[in-house]
């Protein structure tokens, strides 16, 4: 094999491959969607526990407010916010807007940023409603 060919990287080569923004947003949309499907079980548990009375609700609260439960719930919040925001992006595409590569990249990065900010705002609001501040 000639020298020049041997050193040429094959693509997609994971160590040097530059992921397009839109590829990341698309994959994340699907992963968060599947994750939220699992999250519906927590929603069902919350509603059922509330419908059964204070004792069942206390069991739910103990689990949900455990530090591990909080991490899981924070993850579900991130997933829900991301999937909702990126979903709006998809709806805009369905109407034919935002297809230019530069625009799609920009809205993708905006979605990432907005997801983090909105999620933090929700959690700060939730802690505030619990009288944490």
């Amino acid at each position, binding site marked *: 094999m000639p020298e020049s060919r041997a050193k040429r990287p094959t693509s997609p080569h994971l160590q040097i491959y530059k992921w397009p923004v839109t590829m990341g947003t698309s994959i994340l949309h699907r992963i968060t*969607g599947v994750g939220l499907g699992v999250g519906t079980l927590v929603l069902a548990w919350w509603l059922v526990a509330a419908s059964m009375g204070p004792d069942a609700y206390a069991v739910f609260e103990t689990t949900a407010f455990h530090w591990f439960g909080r991490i899981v719930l924070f993850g579900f919040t991130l997933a829900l916010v991301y999937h909702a925001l990126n*979903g709006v992006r*998809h709806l805009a595409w369905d109407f034919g807007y935002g297809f230019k590569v530069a625009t799609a990249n920009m809205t993708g990065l905006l979605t990432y940023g907005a997801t983090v900010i909105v999620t933090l705002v929700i959690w700060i609001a939730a802690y505030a409603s619990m009288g944490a501040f």
Partner: protein
Amino acid sequence: MTIQTPLGRVRGLGSAKSGVEHFWHQRLTAAALVPLTLWFVWIVARYAGAPHVDVVAALGHPINAALMLLFVVAGLYHMALGLRVVVEDYITAKGSKLALLFFVNFAAFAIAMVCVVAVLRIAIRF
């Protein structure tokens, strides 16, 4: 050889035997879920850690109960439609695909039904 015009074939839904229902319902539920998710996030943030009496009083209010029912039904239908695509994309073996599609749809209906009964129970009891 067919004497049907292209338009006639499209109207007959073509060889796929179905039209754009899946695509359309996915978008309908998505559009519905945008405001419903805003409401859902608000109610969860507002009542996280609240005493049981306050939670059921809020969820039992007719407007909130109706919104929660809409959120649950639209959300789980949206989930069933979305997971169908995921299964169809990655699972090629006919048997496994069929089994997973059964599972996805059964799970969606079961979870939705449990949530609906719970919300109605809250609305009636509290």
